[in-house]
């Protein structure tokens, strides 16, 4: 047996038997998790020198894999929590706890590498390809025993949820990397997509998605981005429940600003403050947007919700109601990877003449076809 290959086998055995496991990096002979030029050189010469009939030497497939690791690894990102994450080998086994991550994974063409998802993703028709994938519990409270059994390379979660006590602390002593990305915050979207692209070695696809976002964000910014604050349409954004709104620090507030609007609650304390009905009437917003939790397959349900909103006491004289600018926006396109679609709708509702040539549903379709490999079905994402 060749010395290099022997050392490789011994190291693999030692690492496997070690109670505090670190990632096994094929081709790393000294255990520092990096395939150095010297280590790669030794293995190349060993391969070239070996007889083709001698099975004890390293194979060409392994050598190519090791060369790839030498050339492209380690790779490091700083996740949404500011934690530095270093990946030493290609990620082949992913557990996605958040639907936002799952959607971006699909955009990056890495769904085949997903070995576990949260129950919410598994039950979501939009992610039909994950129906057969092992579920690992809730997005904010995963079953770590199931998760450990899957032996993933990485677990993708939000910055805050689940808490470290429910994830990192239960995975301690393993080589599983927990990467926390806030792919629900519009302002972070391009950065986080880029980071996920680096982790999954899909930088080009990530860049294509970023370019898509940037193209339409630039288009909106060119038309309404420089409006002085007093000329901006005022927006009241109600977040899933009555009179719960959004303020600075929330994704919804960022969307109001990106759409060229002025969030009437932008200065309130707390990211998701609850407001009084009278306060909203006093603000007299130009546009009211209600974020709804799910898309609809018929108009009767959104019609009823909308009817309840516009018939609230004292709302009849509100500019938004009188002007017919009260709209429902479903969670599919509110924040998350499709925030851009929501922003485009909000811009069009706020400035219909400025965006007369833009049909947000076309942009939505473009996104779904180009990045998600599907088309819009008979689903209502906004109403009216």
């Amino acid at each position, binding site marked *: 047996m060749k010395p290099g290959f022997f050392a490789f086998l011994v190291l693999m055995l030692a690492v496997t038997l070690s109670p505090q496991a670190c990632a096994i990096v094929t081709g790393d002979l000294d255990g520092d998790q990096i395939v150095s030029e010297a280590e790669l*050189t030794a293995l*190349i010469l060993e391969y070239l020198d070996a007889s083709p009939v001698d099975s004890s030497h390293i194979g060409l497939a392994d050598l190519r894999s090791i060369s790839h690791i030498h050339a492209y690894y380690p790779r490091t990102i700083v996740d949404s929590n500011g934690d530095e994450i270093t990946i030493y080998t290609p990620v082949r086994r992913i557990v996605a706890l958040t639907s936002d991550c799952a959607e971006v994974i699909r955009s990056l063409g890495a769904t085949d590498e997903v070995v576990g998802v949260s129950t919410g993703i598994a039950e979501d028709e939009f992610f039909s390809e994950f129906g057969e994938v092992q579920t690992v519990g809730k997005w904010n409270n995963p079953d770590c025993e199931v998760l450990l059994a899957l032996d993933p390379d990485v677990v993708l979660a939000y910055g805050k949820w689940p808490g470290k006590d429910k994830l990192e602390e239960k995975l301690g002593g393993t080589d599983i990397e927990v990467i926390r990305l806030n792919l629900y915050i519009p302002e972070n979207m391009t950065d986080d997509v880029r980071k996920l692209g680096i982790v999954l070695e899909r930088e080009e696809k990530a860049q294509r998605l970023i370019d898509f976002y940037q193209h339409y964000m630039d288009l909106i910014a060119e038309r309404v981005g420089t409006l002085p604050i007093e000329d901006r349409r005022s927006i009241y954004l109600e977040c899933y429940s009555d009179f719960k709104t959004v303020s600075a620090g929330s994704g919804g507030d960022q969307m109001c600003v990106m759409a060229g609007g002025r969030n009437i609650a932008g200065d309130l304390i707390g990211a998701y403050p609850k407001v009084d009905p009278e306060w909203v009437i006093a603000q007299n917003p130009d546009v009211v947007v209600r974020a709804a939790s799910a898309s609809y397959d018929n108009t009767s349900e959104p019609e009823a919700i909308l009817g309840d909103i516009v018939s609230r006491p004292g709302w009849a004289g509100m500019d938004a109601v009188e002007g017919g600018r009260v709209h429902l926006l479903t969670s599919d396109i509110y924040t998350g990877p499709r925030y851009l679609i929501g922003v485009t709708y909000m811009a069009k509702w706020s400035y219909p003449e400025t965006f007369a040539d833009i049909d947000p549903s076309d942009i939505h379709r473009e996104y779904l076809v180009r990045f998600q490999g599907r088309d819009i079905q008979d689903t209502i994402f906004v109403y009216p």
Partner: protein
Amino acid sequence: MKLYVAVLLAMIVLSAPGLCDPNNTDNTGVDRAISEIAPNEFDVTLTLDNITICGITETLPCDLTFVSTTHPEEKVKVSGQNISFAVINETQVTYRVRSSTPGSGVPEITGIWIDLLSDSEGAVGGGVMSHSEHQTTDTEAEQQNTPGFGTWVLVAMMFVAYLCVRR
């Protein structure tokens, strides 16, 4: 521009040799240049094109002896008449050989290279041979003698040209 003229132009462009060939890897490979630097002594220079991590094995004929190389010692392995090089982030390798046959002219050395960041491999000085090509050489040779896509393009071009003349 009339549609048929546009179609004709498109066909001419698309039928240009190599333009639409997905296997066009002319720019990848390892070339060998041999220069006589003294009687019976030669410098062999291997030049890599578009290969970042490469394994090369040169096989010397019996009357040649390996003398030295400018490549780092730890990246070279000499085993009988075979000289193996690990080449990482370099574009050239030079080594020296001596012939035991006076006046034998430029020696005939054979060699293989493997691009370790792609599936390409081939003969030194002989272009690229991908792994799949290894297994389908006979089929491909047969296909090259069979009228294929190029012929159909030619027939289609002639038909479009005929339409042009008629109008």
